[in-house]
């Protein structure tokens, strides 16, 4: 039996008929029996290789739950965030998603995934009653496609967009050559082909494309190749906590003047600070693209100020008391946008189905996120193509902006 997007199941037909009936009687149009709580599910890697990231992201979900309920929930119904560990295994995250749907059914109105792998695996299953609007930790370019992935969106630019921003910045600085060093993973490879094409358009020569292991890479070999390539800039892609600092450290020991740049997952202050504390100030001057303002840049950012107050109260004595990592900001904004889309869907008198929510997603235009971005955000092609270049100072231990906000 084919359950295409356009097919109407018996339950959906009954719901639609009921909705039409209710509307004709001038009753509230949301006819789905409202549960006492709506549920937004999440899979996070709280064990396994990315447990650090998962454990740091989880508090933002708690924060999101509290803020949303303080603001009256979604469509007047309070929410609960239900988190499960995935161990960074895509099948586990898929099982978590389906388990939640089986146990909570229609109360589940959205989901936050933990990886590109999960988003790819779940995408074809998002049909009929199984579909929910969702976002994730991934900025994979392949996902930003409303045609193939209508229910999935990202709260920022794709990796290709991030490469575009960096290459534009290099061109603006008069740079003529670049090297791409990436992990030998899908995450690392994502923007490489695009980067080659875009660099050619901007008149920048790509002198080296080098793949490394995602963990435990042979740093000396890669640094030697980088030295032989003699590129002015080097963009690092596909790393989270490791390899990128070692590569920069190795290059500095080698005496290379290359300017290093990174993308979202290689731009976390907690990691840069730890490396500086343990190995010295060699990350000084490291640049990269970040879609969001850092958490300490909270002037005229009401959402950041609200989060800071919450952190002081609830996370006292932890590293999160005064600083929310960029990974947590990404999760927070993703869920904020998810809630906003669902709230707008409810306000429009529509059922909180994935189809209605996905249709509403493209209505998010010129939206004030409360400080995450400099300019207002517009969701186009299920992504927000905004970012700017930041530079790390080992002395102040801060990333500070070196470019204006760029929209791609």
């Amino acid at each position, binding site marked *: *039996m*084919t*359950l295409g997007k356009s097919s109407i199941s018996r339950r959906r037909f009954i719901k639609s008929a009921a909705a039409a009936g209710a509307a004709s009687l001038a009753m509230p149009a949301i006819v789905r029996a409202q549960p006492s709580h709506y549920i937004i599910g999440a899979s996070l890697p*709280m*064990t396994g290789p990315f447990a650090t990231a998962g*454990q740091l992201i*989880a*508090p933002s*979900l*708690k924060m999101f*739950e509290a803020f949303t309920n303080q603001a009256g929930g979604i469509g007047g119904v309070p929410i*609960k*965030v*239900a*988190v*499960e*560990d995935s*161990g960074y*295994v*895509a*099948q586990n995250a*898929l*099982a978590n998603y*389906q*388990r939640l*749907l*089986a*146990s909570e059914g229609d109360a589940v109105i959205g989901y936050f995934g933990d990886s590109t*792998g999960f988003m*790819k*695996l779940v*995408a*074809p*299953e998002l*049909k009929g009653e*199984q579909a929910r609007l969702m976002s994730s930790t991934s900025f994979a370019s*392949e996902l930003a496609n409303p045609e193939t992935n209508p229910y999935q969106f990202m709260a920022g630019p794709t990796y290709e967009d991030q490469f575009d921003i960096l290459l534009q910045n290099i061109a603006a600085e008069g740079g003529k050559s670049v090297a791409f060093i990436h992990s*030998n*993973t*899908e995450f690392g*490879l994502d923007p490489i082909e695009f980067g080659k094409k875009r660099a050619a358009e901007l008149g920048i020569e790509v002198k080296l494309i080098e793949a490394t292991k995602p963990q435990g890479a042979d740093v000396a070999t890669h640094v030697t190749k980088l030295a032989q390539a003699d590129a002015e800039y080097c963009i690092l892609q596909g790393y989270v906590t490791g390899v990128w600092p070692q590569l920069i450290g190795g290059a500095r020991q080698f005496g290379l003047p290359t300017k290093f740049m990174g993308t979202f997952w290689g731009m976390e202050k907690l990691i840069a600070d730890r490396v500086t504390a343990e190995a010295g100030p060699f990350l000084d001057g490291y640049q990269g693209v970040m879609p969001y303002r850092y958490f300490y840049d909270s002037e005229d950012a009401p959402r950041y100020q609200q989060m800071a107050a919450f952190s002081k109260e609830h996370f006292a004595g932890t590293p999160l008391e005064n600083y929310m990592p960029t990974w947590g900001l990404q999760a927070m904004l993703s869920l904020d946008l998810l809630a906003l889309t669902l709230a707008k869907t409810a306000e429009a008198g529509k059922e909180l189905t994935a189809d209605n929510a996905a249709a509403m997603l493209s209505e998010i235009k010129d939206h004030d996120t409360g400080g995450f971005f400099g300019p207002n955000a517009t969701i186009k092609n299920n992504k927000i193509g905004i970012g700017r270049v930041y530079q790390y100072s080992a002395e102040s231990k801060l990333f500070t902006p070196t470019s204006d906000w760029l929209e791609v």
Partner: protein
Amino acid sequence: MIIGNRKTSYLEDEKILNNNYKKAFVFGMIALAIALPFFADDYTILMASLVGIMLIAVVGVNVVIGYTGLLSLGHAGFVAIGAYSVSIIHNLLGEWGVPDVLQPWLALPGAMGVAALIGILVGLPSLRVKGIYLAVATLSANFIIIFLIEIDTFSQWTGGRLGLTTPDPNFFGWVLDSQREVYALIAFCAFATILMVQNLFRTRVGRAFIAIREKDYSAEILGVSLLKYKLTSFAISAACCGLAGAMAAYFYAKVLPEQFELALSLQLVAALIVGGMGRTMGPVFGTIIIVLVPEILKISMGAMMGSSIEAAQLRAPIQEIVFGGLIIGFVLFEPLGISQIMDRFFRALNRWPFARG
């Protein structure tokens, strides 16, 4: 007092279902498997399908490790071969204009055949090395297969690191395009695989495998060709894993290389050890434990500790520790696996109220 099951002929002794408990269990499981799609929710179907896919692979691993005594740690590679081969063959057949209804009949045996051929290749070191050395040799096969899937040279067929979109098989005009429908195929293949492998050990080939396991040079002196039977064992085992991979490809809409890495090979061997090596029901019990216990732990600990975010952060590592402890417990207290525990249980049941144990 009941002291055994009376059999009056060799034919009766050779029967696969040679006592009433086995019959009741197998027919009960068949009835449950048939009834499941009519009342179970999607999550239950997902879990049942995962058990089915894993079971087919573990039955294959049982042939080479449990019955032939050749330690292999590379069987996830054969599962990968099956998953990718079935998708690639479907794509090729589609390009050649072969009708959809014919494609699964060619793609499924094709995927099993490719896996069997690779199995023979990987099994070659078993002619020279044994034990832990063979384990290391087969382990490297797992890495090589994943490497070949990921490299750019073959990415036009394999999709490289981006993975491959899988086909929806069409059986007699029925397109299996939902997990519930593919479950039916998985359940059928799982039962068929168990029965066929069980049947194998009533034949000369199966007995040759067991002879090799018990003492390979004695087997050779008795006329068992080690070359032929060791490689046959690897081929059959890899074909089963290839079938499991094909089922995984039909079940998931996408196959990704990371689904078939070392962790899966270890899981297959762990399931076999926990269930009981060289026993028909070993893979069944082992797979149920390996696939379902983590889920049961998640559900039960979620119920005990609540679904709040703090509780989730706390219980995630606890679940891992409890699961690890359970595996250690099984291996420590019953090295022969759950099959042995179930044997003791049924023996006690049979003799009750007289003797136990």
